[in-house]
């Protein structure tokens, strides 16, 4: 399974490195979203800094949809999805490989968006460890749920429009927990405040990781 995970992740990341879709479209989309939020809130930096945690995670959620759609579309050309099925790769390995690839892109995106939040919104981060931990845990959950729902929508004619409809409501716990942890991190980092939200992120990750490993294969076969 781990061999297949590395193989699929390597293939997807190599494709992204060649096509540069993440670099030229996904990351700029995230930055544009942050900038638009800033325009909507006006020139006063105080409300922007206050809203920064929520806006950061909303931007991450939207860009997650794009990254997952890209991951699905990579397999839709020239019968590549059938090729992947025929290869005999372990479905759990395929799921984890796709998760790694999408996750790596999201982490890179979050680094850029964090810088954007600091520069555009004037947010002052007091507890970096909380930011890093929430981003890593949130990314894991978003990537796991995204890959799973991406596979579910892959066989549908309306996959581009149905994916956000399926995915965004499901990842609301990540939005909530991530925002609360970021608020704590900006306010000085009170671990006791962030703790239950970390637990929520960990539980979300565990559920979607387990679900993905178990049902990705059947979903792929039936999609």
């Amino acid at each position, binding site marked *: 399974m781990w061999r297949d995970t590395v193989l699929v992740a390597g293939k997807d990341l190599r494709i992204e490195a*060649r096509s540069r879709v993440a670099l030229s479209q996904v990351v700029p989309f995230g930055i544009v979203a942050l900038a638009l939020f800033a325009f909507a809130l006006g020139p006063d930096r105080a409300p922007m800094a206050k809203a920064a945690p929520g806006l950061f995670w909303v931007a991450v959620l939207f860009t997650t949809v794009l990254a997952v759609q890209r991951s699905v579309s990579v397999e839709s050309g020239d019968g*590549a999805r*059938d*090729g992947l099925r025929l*290869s*005999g*790769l372990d479905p759990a390995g395929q799921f984890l490989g796709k998760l790694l690839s999408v996750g790596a892109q999201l982490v890179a995106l979050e680094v850029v968006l964090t810088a954007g939040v600091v520069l555009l919104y004037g947010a002052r981060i007091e507890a970096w460890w909380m930011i890093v931990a929430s981003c890593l845990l949130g990314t894991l959950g978003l990537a796991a749920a995204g890959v799973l729902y991406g596979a579910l929508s892959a066989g549908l004619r309306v996959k581009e429009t149905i994916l956000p409809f399926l995915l965004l409501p499901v990842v609301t716990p990540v939005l909530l927990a991530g925002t609360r942890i970021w608020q704590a991190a900006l306010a000085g980092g009170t671990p006791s405040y962030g703790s239950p939200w970390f637990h929520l992120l960990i539980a979300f990750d565990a559920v979607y990781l387990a679900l993905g490993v178990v049902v990705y294969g059947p979903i792929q076969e039936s999609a």
Partner: protein
Amino acid sequence: MAPAAPPTSALSLRNVVALSGRFPLLAGVDLEVAVGETVLVEGPNGAGKTSLLRVAAGLVPIASGHLSVLGLDPERYRTTVRRRVGLLAHASHLYDDLTVRENIRFAVRAAGADTARIDGACDRLGLVGRLLRTPAAKLSAGQRRRVALAVLVARAPELWLLDEPHAGLDAGARRLLNELIAEANAAGATVVVASHEPELVAELASRSITVTGGRVTAERTFGPTGAEAPGAAGLGTVATDAPAPDAPAPDAPAPDAVALRAAPVPPPDGGIAHVA
């Protein structure tokens, strides 16, 4: 656990029905292909040739009947079966952003095959020099076909399922393809070829079946020279509810009319979905 004894039948379908939604792709196919045999699948467009190969590859689940591939149930031993079966389909299964070499390497490693065979396969298919470093997006249809073939040669599966393999290839590549099929067969692989150009494959095949309306409606046996074996000509149909006759040895006399008895042929489009 997979059975340990080597199977004598590479592909066995008994009254197999496969559906796409509510439309039947296969409507009760009976077919036995022995290990090491080369079988030609003929039939008009939409008859079910591609569906037959996709069912054999485990890409389409069966709704009823019995299917065994290399002695295994492809539903139960999905990964094992798929690693031992190679399908050359209409699509090339290539990633446009990867180079020719990267595509072949990924497919071979994914199937758990030996990567040491890649160079030889590429040389054989004329995939050398700059072509190996060319992204698949820049390849012509014929070149994509050759890359897909190189994957198959490098993987060296036990069961080759070839869907219109000569399509898009020039005369030289067609000859090479026939050489590759013959070599694979000589090495013990079983080959099932669906083709609209039976004359290109007849010399390699020991047997030909005709699929019409999602059923096997006729069967011919070829002699060692590729000519239709005496005794089989003109009979052409076999009862679809009867077990398929065992493949004869290449130099054995053709089966007579006992094995090839007339049966009603279903209408070409009798409720059968058209499959590209």
